[in-house]
């Protein structure tokens, strides 16, 4: 009975899987003419449509970086907004080629969902936000016993929340929604006392609330949330393209290659810069990846290096003004470290 049902359903779910599961993503992307990139439905600073109706943000720019590496054109991206519960299915079924959507890298996701994380582009941690006007006496997450907590379902956040309250012998009342927007609306309407998600998400959400100054993010960070892009398992070539696109952005920052000085850098004498920009004689820097030798040049020209993307979307140059913190380069005491490109 079970096998039969699995079969019937499988026909529907996996009908697309025949082509999707093949190890030809790079060729499929090239022939389709754009990278189908799964992003958030609207998280300010990470992926949200801007005033001109274009997807903007840290995660959206990573999609553009991959498109630039493949096509030399950062706009060759088809953005697919996905919510927390449908994101993995979208990747499994081949609806998207790349998931760039504040997704936490965990063991179970790596081993049972048929996907592979291509690196960490944002080191995050889970926090709590409360309305300080309604709850003036609360200044620690440890005082939240008995609170109603808004959380989005199908996230690692939901699991960390349960673990944190259980570990501290506190009670809470989860108010769980499928969608990001519904969860926010419930918090804003006062259905819950606290809202929990990744700290970066809390800062982004806070900006979109009616009175951002009334809301404070509590100091406790209760989990490790390494966020990164993910691709389907079993296609090492595409995995490499995505992974090295991220490393190239980080490496470019380390070498001081920016969107502005790119033209000068192309004539640089520094052998390391010449190598990653494909300026060496007989350069083979793109060959192993199935890309052109100027793929790094294209990424920098289209979106800039890691630091530029960070500042523009979520860092000092944005309304979110998130400090680099753990996301500083390893040379500045952070965790961002690119494998050598050679």
């Amino acid at each position, binding site marked *: 009975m*079970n*096998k*039969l*049902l*699995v*079969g*019937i*359903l*499988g*026909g529907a*779910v*996996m009908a697309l*899987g*025949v082509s*999707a*599961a093949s190890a030809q993503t790079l060729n499929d992307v090239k022939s389709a003419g754009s990278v189908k990139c799964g992003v958030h439905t609207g998280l300010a600073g990470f992926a949200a449509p801007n005033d001109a109706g274009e997807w903007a943000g840290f995660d959206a720019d990573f999609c553009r970086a991959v498109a630039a590496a493949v096509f030399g054109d950062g706009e060759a991206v088809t953005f697919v907004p996905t919510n*927390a*519960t449908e994101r*993995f*299915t979208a990747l*499994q079924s081949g609806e998207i080629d790349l998931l760039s959507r504040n997704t936490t890298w965990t063991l*179970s*996701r790596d*081993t*049972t*969902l*048929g996907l592979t994380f291509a690196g960490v582009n944002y080191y995050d941690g889970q926090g709590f936000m409360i309305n300080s006007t*309604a*709850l003036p*006496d609360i200044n620690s997450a440890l*005082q*939240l016993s*008995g*609170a*109603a907590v808004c959380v989005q*379902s*199908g*996230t690692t956040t*939901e*699991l960390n*929340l*349960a*673990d944190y*309250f*259980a570990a501290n012998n506190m009670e*809470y*009342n*989860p*108010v*769980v929604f*499928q969608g990001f927007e*519904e969860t926010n*609306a*419930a918090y804003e*309407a*006062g*259905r819950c*006392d606290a809202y929990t998600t990744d700290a970066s998400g809390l800062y982004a959400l806070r900006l979109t609330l009616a009175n951002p100054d009334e809301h404070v993010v509590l100091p406790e960070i209760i989990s490790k949330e390494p966020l990164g892009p993910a691709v389907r*398992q*079993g296609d090492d070539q595409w995995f490499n393209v995505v992974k090295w696109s991220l490393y190239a952005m980080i490496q470019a920052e380390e070498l001081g290659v920016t969107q502005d000085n790119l033209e000068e850098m192309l004539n640089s004498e520094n052998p390391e810069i010449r190598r990653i920009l494909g300026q060496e004689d007989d350069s083979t820097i793109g060959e192993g990846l199935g890309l052109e030798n100027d793929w790094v040049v294209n990424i920098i020209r289209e979106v800039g290096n890691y630091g530029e993307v960070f500042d523009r979307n979520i860092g000092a140059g944005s309304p979110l003004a998130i400090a680099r913190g753990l996301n500083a380069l390893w040379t500045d005491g952070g965790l961002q470290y690119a494998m050598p490109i050679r």
Partner: protein
Amino acid sequence: MASQTQVSGAEPARASWINDPKFRGIFFQLVVAAAIIAFVWWIVGNTTENLRRANIASGFGFLNGRSGFDLSQSLIAYSSNSTFGRALVVGLLNTMLVAVTGIITATIVGFIVGIGRLSKNWLIARICTVYVEVFRNIPPLLVIFFWYLGVLSVLPGPRDSVDLPLGSYLNNRGLFLPRVIWDQAAWVIPVSIAAAIIAIVAIGIWARRRQAATGRIFPMFRVGLAIFIGLPVITYFLAGSPATVELPELSTFNIRGGWTIRPEFLSLYLALSFYTASFIAEIVRAGVLGVSKGQSEAAYSLGLSPRRTLRLVVVPQALRIIIPPLTSQYLNLTKNSSLAIAVGYADLVAIGQTTMNQTGQAIEVVAIWMVVYLGLSLLTSGFMNWYNAKMALVER
């Protein structure tokens, strides 16, 4: 000519087996059956192969794993240490809770409104008409949003709760009612209720026999009600009031203690009840109008009062018309309860989605949903078919 004579005769012509209708029938049925089996075989193989190739775990083993998430409402003991299987059972029970309470309320409201539309009182009839037309023509999801966002969300916060009688509170976190905590001696209450029911049935049988023999009518409804309420109440006081009441109280964040009905449940329950009630009202009205006028006229001419005419002549006949379409409304209500996901009520679909996302086992979870909703629907229609058969006209 000879062949025509044969065809018109008792013995049919012995045609070739290709033209034999019996053979053809069997042949084509076999072809269709084989095609279906081949199709299913292909799909099962294709799915298994693709799941394996995509390195996606499959099978129902995940049901025994620790869920790790908490749920807002549970009828059975549940924590984040329980299994995914138990979480899904919690979801099933929550679905059944809202379906059963919704069906009961929708039926009561539907019958009242349906009869109300037939009222000779102009105002009552018009109010009922407006109610039916409004709720019948709005998608159920919007009705749920109306209750959740339009009515319950705009209530004040816990600190400014609306005080209701008997120590109850209403705020945007839900309806907080006093909870009755029974002592050990409270077992006598259910026993007395059972005794009351047995007594009512016995008196009912006696009253029917007496009426058949002497024609005298016994006021069964009033006596029955008195026994049903009176016996447990008397027992309660004789047993020395074996219960205490826990009143809800305001704490740091919220109101604690007492019995809480969450706005998610409340909005879904109210929306489903009032939405479905508008359809039931129309079914009831159609059923009552479907009983020919001659039936009630005949009853009046026999000297039955209007009330007894309604109860003994009109309603039993109307029920035969009402029950079959009522069944599909009950099924609709149960299935519409999956819209719970819109307001974050922890029903089977919501918990299934969470499970699907935490484990990635989409195919298995969808299979569970389908089997459960199919089972619930078959149970409901099975019960309603039994009731319909019981109510059907007994032909002699």
